[in-house]
């Protein structure tokens, strides 16, 4: 488990350092990612959590080098085993894609080419990075399909994507991503489009393949259930920034940033008393065209009155180590945050002794 001071240390397998991504659009500059820093180790899973528009997917596409260079400005560093991906030649990054780092996406049907068979799409992924014959590549693909749990892969490999079920398609996507044994796998909402039962299977599959290949996984999701299930570390993103970052236990047990608390509060839970109401975060995320000057979450934060003066609206908080180990971007004093968190979580659990005090 990662400790708080390790979160800022460098030398991990993948280090993203002060990454900024902005696009020029007709309406102006969109600051999609505004200075984020995180890292992930081989064999570990980092979950990036946030609402849609918080910059999760843009971050992953920036790491993969999959952005339109003419419209996008990217700065900061993405250190991949000591190389800064943002400084590498486009063709060198291309050669890393699919071989050392791979990605799976939310909707496996639209992510597979509708006109080509599974065989064709998988073999292509093998042969772009390995000098093998088509027959050898096909054998590799069948073995990989077997590994991701596709029954009779030697037959299924000649199907078209539309002939498979959603779960099977996502397995194919995973097979395609892992076919060259990458060191880094970015999974962008890999289970969102799937049935709940299939979700669990896919997560299990990812976990067992991670153990086998010792892959670093970045799991992008808005589903806290998935996070609790697979993550070692969690980075909570809001308005293009990381607002809280720590190991999964700290984040779930002692969240300190009001936004993280709000996320946890808005998840329905079976073990909670029925009468306790869901507690959505009021308002909507800020537009990336015009981010608030101070804390990005301030306009929706119910605790900003506890910060003296107008600091939340004027000053941007730094991502700083908190007493409980994680990094938190918040102007509230540490002890106040801990108290708020304790009370709120108590309320959520329906525990009257903790909740009653407030």
């Amino acid at each position: 488990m990662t400790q708080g001071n390790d979160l800022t240390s460098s030398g991990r397998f993948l280090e993203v350092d002060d990454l900024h991504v902005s696009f020029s659009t007709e309406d102006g500059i969109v600051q999609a990612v505004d200075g984020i820093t995180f890292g992930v180790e081989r064999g570990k899973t980092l979950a990036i959590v946030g609402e849609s528009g918080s910059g999760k997917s843009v971050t992953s596409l920036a790491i993969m080098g999959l952005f339109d260079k003419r419209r996008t400005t990217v700065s900061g560093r993405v250190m991949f085993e000591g190389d800064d991906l943002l400084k590498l030649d486009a063709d060198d990054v291309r050669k890393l894609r699919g071989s050392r780092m791979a990605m799976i996406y939310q909707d496996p049907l639209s992510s597979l080419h509708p006109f080509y068979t599974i065989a064709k799409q998988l073999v292509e992924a093998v042969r772009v990075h390995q000098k093998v014959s088509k027959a050898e590549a096909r054998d590799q693909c069948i073995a990989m399909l077997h590994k991701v749990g596709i029954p009779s892969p030697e037959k299924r490999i000649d199907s078209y994507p539309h002939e498979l079920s959603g779960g099977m398609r996502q397995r194919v996507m995973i097979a395609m991503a892992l076919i060259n044994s990458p060191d880094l796998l970015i999974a962008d909402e890999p289970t969102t489009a799937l049935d709940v039962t299939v979700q669990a299977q896919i997560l299990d599959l990812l976990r067992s393949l991670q153990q086998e290949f010792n892959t670093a996984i970045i799991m992008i999701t808005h589903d806290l259930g998935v996070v609790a299930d697979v993550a070692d570390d969690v980075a909570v993103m809001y308005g293009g920034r990381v607002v809280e970052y720590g190991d999964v236990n700290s984040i779930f047990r002692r969240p300190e940033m009001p936004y993280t608390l709000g996320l946890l509060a808005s998840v329905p839970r079976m073990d909670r008393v029925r009468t306790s109401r869901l507690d959505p975060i009021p308002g909507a995320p800020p537009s990336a065209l015009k981010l608030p000057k101070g804390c990005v979450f301030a306009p929706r934060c119910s605790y900003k009155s506890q910060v003296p003066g107008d600091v939340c609206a004027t000053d941007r908080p730094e991502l700083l180590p908190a007493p409980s180990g994680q990094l938190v971007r918040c102007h509230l004093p540490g002890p106040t945050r801990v108290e708020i968190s304790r009370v709120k979580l108590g309320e959520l659990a329906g525990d009257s002794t903790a909740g009653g005090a407030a």
Partner: protein
Amino acid sequence: MSTSVSVYVLRRVLSMLLMLLLLSLIVFLLFNVLPGDPARLTCGKACTPEIIEANRHRLGLDMPVIAQYWEFLKGLFVGRTYAANSPDPVQCSAPCLGYSFKRHAEVSQLIKDGLPCTMWLALGSFIIWMVVGIGLGVYTALRRGRWQDKSVLGVALIGYSLPSFFIGILAMFFIVIKWHLLPYPRYVPPTEDLSKFLQTMILPWIVLAILYAAFYIRLTRSQMLETLNEDYIRTARSKGLPDRTVIRKHALRAGLTPIVTSAGLDLAGLLGGAVFIEAIFSLPGIGSLALGSVTDSDLPVIVGVTLVAAVFVIVANLVVDVLYAVIDPRVRPS
């Protein structure tokens, strides 16, 4: 799967035949109610009303239109003989599309004579406009919003807005008549004199291709812009495929369906004769034949040419539909 494909094709062929039958009836009726007396065309300058009436009777033109249509249909399958009881009957062998008394020839023969020229014209310009249209379409899509994109689109818009006869006349006037860059067009089959053939055809090919290329640039460009945004293109890139492969094998292939549709129908339309271009460049094709027969009110030729042109379009429709299934596995009946 192959049986269901052949059942599908068979059904399409049958409905195609039905459509042709209906079409021939409409064409036949339509041109029969138009002014112009077919019997008048059967006799020369020294014509008297008596001769015209006699001819009308001998040729069966005094029968009801439906009976004439029946004769026409029969002629298609078994051939027919005009003026069978006269001293010099006219024989028209099956498939008899009619007989032109104006030109003293079987309509099917006239069409057969004109077809190669029209076919070469259509094929040559088709190849030019497809290569230029798809090539520049992809190019502009990849440089969307930049000066290359804007200038190609601007030129294409000009090409698209100018009528082909206008460009054709300009080309003819400057390149052939004024600057003598090419000899005056005179059609010869390519088997007879290839260089003469090419010298004649190059201008009409280009003029015709300009109009169509402009359309295909815009079509390809918009298709590419659409498919380049698809998730599977992102997948192809994240596999580490080189840009060229992503564009050609993934994006272009996915955007091909509407391009193939238009290409099939445009080519078929041209096979029915490019009237203006053939007229400007004196090409003896179907278009010239149609134009001449309309000027002369040569009814059997008009009906024949219209039907043949319709056959091309209907067949092209069928071919395009079959090609869909080849391109897109999702529309294959399973």
